Every structure is written in structure tokens, then in C-alpha cells.
């Protein structure tokens, strides 16, 4: 619990102040406030993925399913049960959690490539369900829903107010994440990522830890999704598709998996970058794909990871282990950092 460091606190405060003033800054750089909200929410989603890739060492390539479940959970409960703002977010998050509980046992049987494949496949099942049950979900047309009033306040949050509400959520999730990775649980996850066999020999039930990590990740992802649904007042099947998963994983890796702030930076670059690119080039998918390629080949530790490494190297210390390339599978050897 080393929050005592004054400089660290000041840095965090500086970031917070910047985020507080985003709604004022944003129009001057040609962005609507809702894009900033989108950055925050995708940052949460990327953090969820980070928990799995950077701290547990598994490949969650179907994570968008939980994102989508969150959005649909919120939307459906608003549409059919007329719940309030906070209730819809909670229910959406629960929907994602249920999804994770359902598919978790299947995923746990395998690791590495198989885990990734399975998660992609199961993610697609949810996509088909959203697509197929058109009477309930609206199918590929998606579902429109109004933003409900906040319970107790009787107030429907407009753009700026909504942004601040999301900033609060983001801050809480960030703090929670910090506590989580610093906790014994978080340490155990790192041990599993490092070398699962060794962790098992030490008597740890790695399956259970990974399952819990998956659940927590799903909760964060679902929370982000529910809030995003409320932001655009819409839920649609593509939210669940593996392309969305890929984008979120890219944000994590781009920013730096295994770091606390990496996903946030990745989300900024991705969301705003996409916004700018798509305005100017119709064929913006090409630079996007090139970004994937460049990031994987050139920046495997992500931007933040690479920066922190450089800082570390100058100090002469060991590179922080979570930032390393993700633990290899049976087929690849993990290299020891000098």
C-alpha cells in the first residue's frame, strides 16, 4: 500500500486535474466531449484485458463479449424493466459476470493458444445470440434506449455531466485496480504468469485464481460496456464481435500491458487516433492495421512499457517483471532479461 510517495501522488493529481478539464479543452482540439468519455470507458475495458494479459498471462481475445453483455444488460433492463441509471449499470455488469461464469469452466481446461481460440469461439456465441434473438435484442439493427434518470436525483445526465460521472467511475476502477494488483491476490497472479507449473507445485490452485481473474476482468469489461451503452444510448451486436476484442487488446498492448497506466494511454491513442484517421482517410483501416503490426514488432512492451524500461535501465535496475513479454507457452522459451 505504498501510496505514501509524495511525487507519485502529485503526478496522479496532475492527471486528475487534466481529466477534470477535458470537457473545456476538448472542443478546442476538435473533439466532442463524448469522445473523451469513450476514451475513459475503453480505458477501463483495456484495463480489464490488462489484468489477464499483463498480470495473469492469459490471452483474452473474446473479451468484447463481456463488453457487449454489459451494454445489452443495461439496455435490456432499461427497455423492459425501466430501471434507473445506476441500476442499469449494475445489472449490465452482472450480465457480463454471468457470461464469464458460464464460459469460464470451459476456458480453464486449456492455456495458451487454446485458451485464446476458445475465448474467441465463445465470444462469437454471444455475438450470434445478440444477432439472432431479434425480438428481444433488435438483432443487427441494435437497440435504441433512452438514458434513464439517476435514482434519487431524478436527473438525466447530459453530455458533460455524464462525462464527469464516468470520470468518477474511471477513478474508482483505477484505484481498485491498483489495490488489486498490489494485493496478495495480485501477487499470486503474477506468480502464475511467471511460471504456472511452479505456482502449482507451491500448492496454489491456479485454475481457481485464473477463474477469479477472469471474473474480475469480466466485471470491469461489463462495467465499461454498460456505461458505453448508456453513453451512445444504443447497443448493437458488433460490440461483442472479435474485432472489438482485437481493438481492446491492441490498446492494452500498445500502451503497455503489465503497467497500470498503459491501457489508458493505449485507449487515448486508439480512440482519438481512429477519430482523426477516419476523418481524413477513407481507407484508415490500413494505417490501423499497420499500427498493430508496428506495435507488435517494434513496441512489444507498449509505449509506457518501453518508456519505463528506458527509465529503469538508466537506473540500472531489473525491468519490472509484469512488463515483460507475456509468458510463453510450451512452444516458446521465455528470455531472461539482462
Amino acid at each position, binding site marked *: 500500500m505504498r501510496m505514501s510517495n509524495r511525487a507519485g501522488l502529485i503526478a496522479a493529481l496532475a492527471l486528475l486535474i487534466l481529466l477534470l478539464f477535458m470537457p473545456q479543452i476538448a472542443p478546442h482540439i476538435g473533439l466532442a466531449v463524448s469522445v473523451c468519455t469513450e476514451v475513459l470507458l475503453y480505458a477501463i475495458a483495456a484495463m480489464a484485458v490488462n489484468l489477464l494479459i499483463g498480470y495473469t498471462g492469459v490471452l483474452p481475445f473474446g473479451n468484447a463479449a463481456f463488453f457487449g453483455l454489459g451494454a445489452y444488460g443495461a439496455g435490456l433492463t432499461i427497455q423492459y424493466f425501466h430501471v434507473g441509471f445506476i441500476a442499469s449499470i449494475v445489472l449490465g455488469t452482472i450480465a457480463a459476470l454471468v457470461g464469464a461464469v458460464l464460459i469460464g469452466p470451459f476456458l480453464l481446461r486449456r492455456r495458451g493458444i487454446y485458451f485464446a481460440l476458445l475465448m474467441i469461439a465463445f465470444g462469437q456465441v454471444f455475438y450470434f445470440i445478440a444477432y439472432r434473438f431479434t425480438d428481444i435484442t433488435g438483432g443487427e439493427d441494435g437497440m435504441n434506449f433512452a438514458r434513464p434518470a439517476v435514482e434519487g436525483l431524478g436527473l438525466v445526465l447530459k*453530455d458533460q455531466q455524464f462525462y464527469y460521472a464516468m470520470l468518477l467511475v474511471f477513478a474508482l476502477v483505477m484505484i481498485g485496480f491498483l489495490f488489486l494488483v498490489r494485493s496478495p491476490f495480485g501477487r499470486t497472479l503474477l506468480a502464475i504468469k511467471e511460471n504456472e507449473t511452479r505456482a502449482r507445485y507451491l500448492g496454489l490452485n491456479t485454475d481457481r485464481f485464473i477463474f477469479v481473474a477472469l471474473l474480475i476482468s469480466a466485471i470491469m469489461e461489463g462495467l465499461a460496456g454498460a456505461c458505453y451503452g448508456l453513453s*451512445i444510448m444504443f447497443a448493437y451486436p458488433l460490440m461483442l464481435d472479435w474485432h472489438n476484442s482485437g481493438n481492446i487488446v491492441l490498446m492494452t498492448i500498445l500502451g503497455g500491458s503489465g503497467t497500470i497506466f498503459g491501457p489508458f494511454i493505449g485507449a487515448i491513442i486508439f480512440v482519438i487516433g481512429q477519430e482523426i484517421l477516419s*476523418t481524413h482517410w477513407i481507407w484508415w483501416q490500413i494505417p490501423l492495421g499497420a499500427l498493430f503490426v508496428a506495435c507488435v514488432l517494434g513496441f512489444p512492451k507498449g509505449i*509506457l512499457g518501453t518508456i*519505463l524500461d528506458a527509465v529503469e535501465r538508466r537506473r540500472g535496475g531489473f525491468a519490472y517483471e509484469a512488463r515483460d513479454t507475456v509468458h510463453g507457452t510450451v512452444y516458446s522459451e521465455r528470455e531472461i532479461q539482462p
Partner: protein
Amino acid sequence: MSEGKPDRKSFLTTAAITSAGLVTGFPAILPSRAFAADTLRVGLNEEYTGVYAAYAQSETRGAQMAMDAWNARGGVMGGTKVELVQADNNNNPGTSVEKTRQLVLVQKCAVLMGTINSADSLAVSGAANALNTFFIDSGGHADAVTGEKCAYSSFRTCHSTWMETHATGYSLAKKFGKKWYMIIPDYAFGHALQAGYHDVAKKIGVEFVGEDLTPLGTTDFSPYLTKVLAAKPDLLLVLVQGDDFVNCLKQTTQYGIVGKVPIGGPQVELEAVWALPKEARVGYWGVEWYYKGASVLGSGNKLADDFIAAYQKKYGQPPTARSAFGYITMDRLLWTVNEAKTTNAAKMARALEGAKFRSIWEGEGYYRDVDHQLMWPMWVGQIRAQGTADDKYDIFDIVDRQEAEAIEQSVAEKKAVCHMNWPT
């Protein structure tokens, strides 16, 4: 494991500096947008990337031509020029909503038009309504846009799904008979089409000798086509869209159905037909507008003739229904601003509702009060294997025309589902 952790300070410091730098550094790399003062900016939100890109381009071209015509006449409201601001929603509802907000809040568009994909139309309609901004859906067919999800600030130009099924249903039943086999894509659009044809069946007494829901991603229609031949229907309705449509038609040829059973369906886009391989150029389809034919254009329709000639000259191809949607939408949008002398959505809506006008088809049209749907006729055409002797693009033979009031839901029916949230 307790060695080698970086300290917090460097973590957070670097993180904070990086993010601050990135965010505040952005203005340096963003191009500056020069806003011309005193113009009316129309936001055009379209699917420029993705499978609908060709339609988006046609709609944009039509819209541009209408806008140029108004600007040539001096603009709107006594001299204000009109400017078009395009946004690519990437065929994604989330992006559609973000772009809507950007067009209105950042790029100061006073009015909006566009969208092709139903999901995007619904998303934009909702988002525009939340911003109290006038929006005309030029190309999204979902019934809900002028149905359960209608909004006082939203209008629609292209025909609704209901109109498509009823126009073709009545027409083809008359032509071929009342024993039908339907192949339906198993998703929202397909279900809507199915419901529409069931309603037609109820109204004129059609019997379904077979109905198959094809799953998402079906590219192989053989299971259904073998059943079709056995069932001996008067008409085979193919409701699948896009590339599935092409495959299905190709396969009907391969299975020898063409020639034995007439094939038809709710609608087909000219851009798509031009790209069809020879063996798939069959059937009778709903056509929302066509650039030839007296039943479509009338005779001596100067507006239509000028539009078609100018379009052909500028782009080297004839205008399609999509071009027409873009043209009519922009034209009516600007007319409404001019008429209402404001861009206030409620006032514009009142001005446009029920106002009869003539445009690039034969007859009068109007956007209905109850649901804001443009009431204009729909046509049925047969695809020719190739164009005519002097026009390779002319591959439709228009065989029938159905009037709007007969093919859309009645005012009473719409009143039951569409509740517009007019501001007080």
C-alpha cells in the same frame, strides 16, 4: 519477487507526463478546421467504408447535386450558402452516434441527413433527437425509424421495409399467383420482411408452400433450393441480401430453378445488380426509383431529366435510387430550412410535415404527419440479362407501379406505435 519493482514515483510521473503530453500535444498535429461563418452546414453521416460504400457514394453525389442547385439559386433564407460536411460512420452504430455528436457539437452542423444501414439510422435518429437536431434518414429502411422509434426531429426519404414487401407482394401475386415459397435470412431485417409478406398474405389470401429461415452466414442455399423444386410454388421469394443474394441467385441457376419458377423479392439496388454475374441476373424486384421509364419519371418531367442528364455527365453513369434518395433528401431539407426560416427542429418538422411537392418522379409526394415517412410510389422491375442496345446500364424493365398509400401502414396503425416526443 520483492526486488526489482520500479518505484511508484517513476511509474506515475512518467505516466502523468506522457498522458498530459499526448493529450495537450494533439492540437499540434490536428489540422485546423477553418469554419466559414454565415453558411448553413449540413451534416451527411454515411457508411463510406464497408459494404455500403457504393451506396454511400451515390447518396452523397445526389445530395451534392441538390445542394449545388440550391447554391446556384442563391442559397437558403435569402443568401446563406449551404456547405456539406461529410462524416464516415464506418457502418458502426457507436461511431454513428459519435459522429452525430461531432457534426452537431464540434462542426456546428445545424441539420443532419444520411445513413444506409438500419442500425446506424436508428442510432443517429436517437442521437440527433437527444440533441434536438433535425435529421432526415435518406437511406435506412427499418420500419422502426418511422415506427416505434419515431421522433419529432426525424424524417425518412427511402421506402420503409413494409412498403417494399407490400409493393412487391401485391404486384407479384397479381402477376404469378398466390402460392409462394420464401427464403428468409434469419436476422432482424429478414424477420421484418417476413412479417411484411405475412401481412400481404393475410390481406390478399396467399398460401405459403414453404418458408425457410436461413441462418446468419449462410452462403450455401442448396438445402432450400432442392425443397423449392419439390414444392412447386408460383413464386419464389428470395429475401436474402448482399452477397448472400448473389450466391442464392447463382445457385438457383445451378439448380435449374430459373425458368421453372419465377423469382422475386422486396428490393434490389442497381449498384448491386450491375455487379451481378450473368447467371444471377434474374427475377422481379422492388425498385425504389429508376432513371428510365414513363411510369417512374412521367413525361416531360424537367426536374428529373435535368437531374439525370447532369448526373450522367458528371459521373459517367446514370443515377441510381440511392442517388435519388440523396437528391430528394437534400432538396427537401433545404426547402424546409428556407420555408421555416429557421433550423429549429420542431419548427422545421411542422413545416415539412404534409407539404406536398413534385420531384424527380411522376406524381406528388409528401412526408406524412403521423410518422414522417415520405409517401411516394414504388416500382417493380425485371432484371435483364444485359443492358439494352444503346445503354449497358439499363438492366431493369419496369413492369409495375404501386402507390404509397396502398403499400404503407395506415395512419391509424402508425398512430398506435409511433409516439412523437414533441417539445413543449
